[in-house]
């Protein structure tokens, strides 16, 4: 609508371009209905509280509870801390491994590339439920293959029930998630590496830049924008994560809340758990904070990182 009126004012003689609106409409309508409206609905919900069966406006009261009441804030900071650790593991393990795999795959001497590519990507399309359940079984001290395999190579003494120990559970689950999603950075980087023109590589070779030096000096700078995209995707994905923890550890994210991340914390608050009755208003407050954290992260990336990335046009 706006585009039409603007077009009319500036250039009254040109015909109205209906098709722009018509073609935009489906995407705009669907996106508004299922993304933007619920988002504002959540923001609105977080400003109310249920008192005596009716919704009462309390301003920022729910946020004051969330940060001021130790019954909420302790859990919130714990979840945020765990979530940051979850993200750090992904950044330190998943993305470097993804880049390494992509570099190996793009090497012209490697055979069976298509097979490796598919095999590494398959876990990404598996359901969280399957991944969570399979790894719970693999790591099970009773029926799992992990203790047997470790026994095989004489490392049995290093086996502990990782998912049941406070100090290891979150790291173990982060690594499971890394295993599942390493295919995504691999694919994106792989595509970026393939798009580097052969002339650039040949020119590098003429100048005597080969092997590892070629990767560090020529290819890595060229795929930096892709790495940026991957980082932001990882960030958004990790701070929205929920499914894996829920399927592997349950909504209470045991032992002793050591695997509780913002997603599971939100779930317990919003829907309740066992005897805990759900509180949609507090849940919406947590969801709002999650939204703000992600928004802040994306803004940092957009304004501080992306503007400084150099792009090369071939």
């Amino acid at each position, binding site marked *: 609508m706006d585009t039409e009126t603007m077009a009319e004012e500036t250039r009254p003689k040109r015909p109205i371009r209906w098709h722009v609106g018509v073609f935009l409409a489906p995407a705009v309508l669907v996106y508004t209905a299922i993304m933007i409206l619920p988002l504002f609905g959540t923001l609105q919900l977080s400003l109310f509280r249920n008192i005596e*069966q009716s919704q009462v406006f309390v301003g920022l009261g729910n946020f004051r509870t969330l940060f001021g009441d*130790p*019954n*909420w804030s302790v859990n919130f900071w714990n979840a945020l801390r765990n979530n940051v650790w979850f993200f750090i593991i992904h950044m330190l393990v998943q993305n470097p491994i993804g880049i390494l795999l992509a570099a190996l795959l793009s090497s012209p001497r490697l055979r069976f590339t298509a097979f490796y590519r598919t095999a590494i990507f398959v876990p990404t399309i598996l359901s969280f439920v399957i991944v969570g359940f399979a790894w*719970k079984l693999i*790591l*099970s*001290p*009773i*029926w799992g293959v992990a*203790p047997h395999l470790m026994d095989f190579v004489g490392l049995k003494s290093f086996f*502990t*029930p*990782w*998912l*049941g*120990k*406070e100090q290891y559970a979150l790291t173990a689950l982060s690594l499971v998630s890394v295993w599942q999603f390493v295919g995504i950075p691999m694919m994106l980087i792989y595509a970026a590496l393939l798009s580097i023109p052969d002339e650039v590589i040949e020119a590098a070779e003429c100048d005597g830049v080969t092997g590892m030096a070629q990767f560090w000096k020529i290819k890595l700078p060229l795929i930096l924008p892709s790495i940026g995209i991957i980082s932001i995707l990882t960030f958004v994905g990790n701070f929205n994560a929920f499914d894996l923890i829920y399927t592997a*550890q*349950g909504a*209470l994210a*045991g*032992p*002793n*809340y050591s695997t509780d991340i913002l997603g599971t914390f939100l779930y*317990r608050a919003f*829907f*309740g*758990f*066992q*005897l*805990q*009755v*759900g*509180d949609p208003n507090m849940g919406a407050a947590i969801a709002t904070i999650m939204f703000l954290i992600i928004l802040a992260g994306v803004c940092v990336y957009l304004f501080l990182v992306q503007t400084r990335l150099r792009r090369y046009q071939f």
Partner: protein
Amino acid sequence: MKTKLLTALLLGTSILGTTGMALAEDVTLNIESWRGDDLTIWKDKLIPAFEAKNPGIKVVFAPSAPTEYDAALGAKLTAGSAGDLITCRPFDKSLELYKKGNLTDLSALPGMENFSPVAKSAWQTDDGKASFCVPMASVIHGFIYNKDAFDKLGLKVPTTRDEFFAVLDKIKADGTYIPMAMGTKDLWEAATMGYQNIGPNYWKGEEGRAALIKGDQKLTDKDWVAPYEELAKWKPYLGDGFEAQTYPDSQNLFTLGRAAIYPAGSWEIGLFNTQAQFKMGAFPPPVEKAGDTCYISDHTDIGMGLNAASKHPEEAKKFLSWVASPDFATIYANALPGFFSLNSSPVKMEDPLAQEFVSWRGKCKSTIRSTYQILSRGTPNLENETWVESANVINGTDTPEAAAKKLQTGLDSWYKPAK
């Protein structure tokens, strides 16, 4: 030819018309439930028994998954598409539905007189004036043991705590069996099968529970910390890697015959009977000295209420009266051994293990889980915290005193007992 066609058409319409009328006379009642496991029992046994006696009323049992039930039911009630009959969770979840006006007051329902006040307590307002669900079943806690293993090792069923630990020591020394099948991964095992199982013997069942609600006792009192001290002693008797052992793992360890004792809830009986290849027995939580009064957790678990928005309240009430009758109790208790009828008239049960469990009602005093009534209304939620702390105590990451202190501090932050 034409007339023939016409008569055929007329006949057709008349038949169609009459079936339409028959359908209109039949009233269909839908039951909302989380007990998907019971689908065949409802379809094959309970519903036919009711329909045979009440022609004109059709009943459909429509369960949803346990973890989704509360959310799904809430959404359906708001949308007005929920079934006529609603399976009730105990205590606050149902109380909340009643307060919202989703459940009807059933205090005057014929058949309600068949239940004791304790049985009705799970589905009453705090003042006890209105009852809104018909109690269906309770579950009893205790220990199930592998009789073959006990015979082989020459063990006697323990009645006191010292005997209990002596038995565990002997099983451990022998080494063939894991003494006790329990894990802490799923948290609730530690709380429900651990703390709430052995606890009533320490806090004297209803006496302690009522005192806790009144504020006369605290979770940091000796009677409430002592069960944690006993739980901490369980640790060496649990299997390797119990920290990551889930609830199904524990069940399988026991039914495969690899563990000797299983801290249980009676709901396991049905599954264990079909899976275990050995003889099983059960004993109630051991008491301190021989001859002490024993207390058991006989926890009200399932009830059924009437959707206030039901279009057929009269027929639904008829059904609920039947649910309150001894007829229903007999079929239900026998079809689902381990879910014990709350009906005051004694029910004859065939299953020996179920008989053993229910026989404790005669010699021990019954109570319900301490955290369920009133005390789990606030934040932090006492039941959830009890799960976490019970697991912490067994894992050794919290001392019994520290766990009790955390629970009491959490409770104090929102619960002010009415003095």
